[in-house]
Structure formats: structure tokens, C-alpha cells
């Protein structure tokens, strides 16, 4: 056995041991080595800032943002309308507990290649030392961006709502149709499992249903997820579905906000 083979087997054993101890939980599988994140996090932030600083927002981008803001206002108006109706009917609306927004600068976008691939996740430089917990909602303005999937003391892994395999209960702002939103992994989402008797409309906003857990993680009601762009309704099917487009382009955001409950 030559020297190279011996060295290789020593290092491969180290890797397997590392995998083993991270697998059985001696080193938390999701958090890695915190000191590495602590060292790299400020540098990653600087690199991302340079990148964002050099890309100027075009007029089209500004219009898109304005349109997004107006759509969100419309969604809020529909929600307020619903609330007023409920009050008139002498039902008391439940107010979610006050929340605080924790700024989380984006330092990484795994799987993102401009113009070719859309990210499924974000890495932010805010971690458990700042009060971030797994399962907390991540927003930008009033729009739900994703949720905290993994966390270590200095950074957190945010799963985007558009990511493949992501699904949770939602409702439409205007018509109140309930269903399940499913991320497709390519920046698109599908609103599925909507019964045929519910009414879906193109242009209607999709918002979160109340989904806050006992430890104050999860999605509070009324956060905007996206806008319905097309509807697939067939009388022969059990459910109808709709394509939903997100309103915010996360690849252009310098930071997002983690929704922490007081």
C-alpha cells in the first residue's frame, strides 16, 4: 500500500467519523460548526453587499415593486372588508399576538444561478443567538417569504415558500377559498385541494391561514403569499387548483425579516 493510499484512508475515515457523529447528534446535524459560521458570516455579508450594491434597480423593477405594493394593499383591503363583515355579524375577530420583526441579512442562496436557477432556500446571518427558532415565519413587508428550517447560533437556513416539497394551508383573500399551497421549486406555486364549490378568481391574493404553534412558531394569519395567475377547474375532478405567482423577488433582496412572537 503506497503513501497516498494510506493518507486517503486516514482522511476518508475522518470524514466517515464526522458523518457518523453528526448523524447521531453529537454535533447537531443542522448547525455544523458554529465557529466557522461566526468567522465567515461577516465576510459573506460584505460580499453580498458588494453584489447588491453594483446591481442597479431598473425602472421595470420599480414598477413591479409598486405593483406588488398595490396588490398587497388590495389584499389588506379585502381582509379588512372581511373583518368588518364579521364585526357586523357580532363575531369577534381573533387578533394574533403581537409580533416583532428580526432583520436577517441574506448571506447565501444555495442553488441560485442568475438567469438559470431560482433558489429554494436562503442563508441569513441571524441565528439562535438573536432569538431565531426553527419553524418561525420569514417575511418581507407583508409577504411571506419562507420559514426557518435549520438554525445555528450565528446563521439560519430559510426554506422558501416556492421551494419544492413545501406545502401548508392557505386561503384566498377575496373569496375565502381554502386550500393547500405547494411550492414547485422553480419559483412557482400551486394552490391545490380547493373544493369545487369554492370560488377562485384570477388576480385574487392568497394569504396564510392561522397556523401558529404553541411555542409561537408557524404562520400568523393574513400574510400575503402570492397572486392567482390561472385556474384549473374541471367538473370531473374532485378538487380545483390554481397557479400562484410570488410578488417579491427574493434574489434582489438584501435582507428579510424573521417573525418572532413576543
Amino acid at each position, binding site marked *: 500500500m503506497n503513501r497516498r493510499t494510506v493518507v486517503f484512508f486516514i482522511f476518508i475515515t475522518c470524514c466517515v467519523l464526522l458523518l*457518523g457523529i*453528526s448523524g447521531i447528534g453529537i*454535533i447537531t*446535524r443542522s448547525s455544523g*460548526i458554529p465557529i466557522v459560521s461566526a468567522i*465567515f458570516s461577516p465576510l*459573506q455579508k460584505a460580499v453580498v453587499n458588494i*453584489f447588491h450594491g453594483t446591481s442597479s434597480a431598473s425602472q421595470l423593477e420599480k414598477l413591479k415593486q409598486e405593483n406588488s405594493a398595490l396588490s398587497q394593499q388590495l389584499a389588506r383591503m379585502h381582509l379588512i372588508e372581511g373583518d368588518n363583515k364579521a364585526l357586523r355579524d357580532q363575531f369577534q375577530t381573533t387578533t394574533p399576538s403581537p409580533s416583532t420583526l428580526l432583520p436577517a441579512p441574506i*448571506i447565501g442562496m444555495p442553488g441560485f*444561478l442568475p438567469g438559470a436557477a431560482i433558489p429554494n432556500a436562503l442563508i441569513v446571518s441571524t441565528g439562535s443567538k438573536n432569538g431565531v427558532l426553527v419553524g418561525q415565519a420569514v417575511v418581507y413587508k407583508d409577504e411571506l417569504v419562507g420559514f426557518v428550517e435549520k438554525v445555528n447560533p450565528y446563521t439560519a437556513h430559510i426554506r422558501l415558500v416556492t421551494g419544492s416539497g413545501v406545502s401548508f394551508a392557505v386561503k384566498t383573500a377575496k373569496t375565502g377559498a381554502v386550500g393547500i399551497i405547494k411550492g414547485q421549486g422553480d419559483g412557482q406555486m400551486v394552490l391545490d385541494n380547493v373544493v369545487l364549490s369554492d370560488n377562485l378568481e384570477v388576480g385574487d391574493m392568497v394569504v396564510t391561514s392561522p397556523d401558529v404553534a404553541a411555542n409561537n412558531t408557524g404562520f400568523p394569519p393574513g400574510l400575503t403569499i402570492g397572486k392567482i395567475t390561472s385556474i384549473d377547474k374541471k367538473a370531473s375532478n374532485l378538487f380545483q387548483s390554481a397557479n400562484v405567482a410570488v410578488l417579491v423577488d427574493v434574489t434582489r433582496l438584501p435582507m428579510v425579516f424573521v417573525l418572532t412572537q413576543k
Partner: protein
Amino acid sequence: MIRAIILVGCFFLSLLLETTILQLPLSLLFLLAVTVVYQTEWVFLIAIFLGVVLDSLLFRPLGSTGLFFLCFLLFVFLYEQKFELRTIQFSALMSFLGSFLYFLFFGHSVLWLQITLSVIIGIGIFILTKLRIPRADSF
């Protein structure tokens, strides 16, 4: 000494870019270039170190990237007796194979544009490494 500092700087820069704005396997491409130019066992140590750092920054199970790097480098070394490693053709072929496997194991999907870019960058890094280091045995 200056050579080592330049290499460390390049690895550090590739780590920073790979974990932030550029989702290409830059660390793997640098490792490959250093492997084919120097043909030394030191790359195994660099591979395991880079693997651990990448795992920590990209929230992967610790040791998985290192394991992939080591297996890939061993695969490259297997052809040492059969082919001349310090050629652009070999570097391009291994960049293609390495980035394809990397995206297959760690990427969300295999994208040919990313792989093509990786091959081009891999060739570039190989040429630069070879230019900067005319005497490969002095590492």
C-alpha cells in the same frame, strides 16, 4: 511561501463566492487544478478542510462534502499512471465529471448551463495554476 499564501487566498475566495453569490463548485475546481498540477497528498488535507467549512456554511451533514471531495480526488489520482494529468483536456473532462456529480449529490437539480460554466472556469483555473507554478515538484 508566497505560492502557498496565494493558494490559501484563492481557496478562501472560492469558499466565500461559492457560499454567497455564485452557486458553482469553485472549491472543487480549485482542488482539481491543484491536484492535477501538484499531484501531492496535501490536497486530501485541503479537501477535508474545505469540505468541513462548506458543510458548516451550507447546512449539510458534516463530512459529506469532504467525503465527496476525497473520493473524487482519488478517482483523479487513479488515472495518474494512464494519462498525462497536466493537460487542458484532462482538466476539462474532470471539471465536467466533478461538477456533474457535485450537482447530482448536492445541487437542487443538474443544470447544464452551470456545468458548462464550471468546465470553462475549471480550465481557466487550471491554466492560471499551471502558469503561476512552473515547477510542480517544489510544493
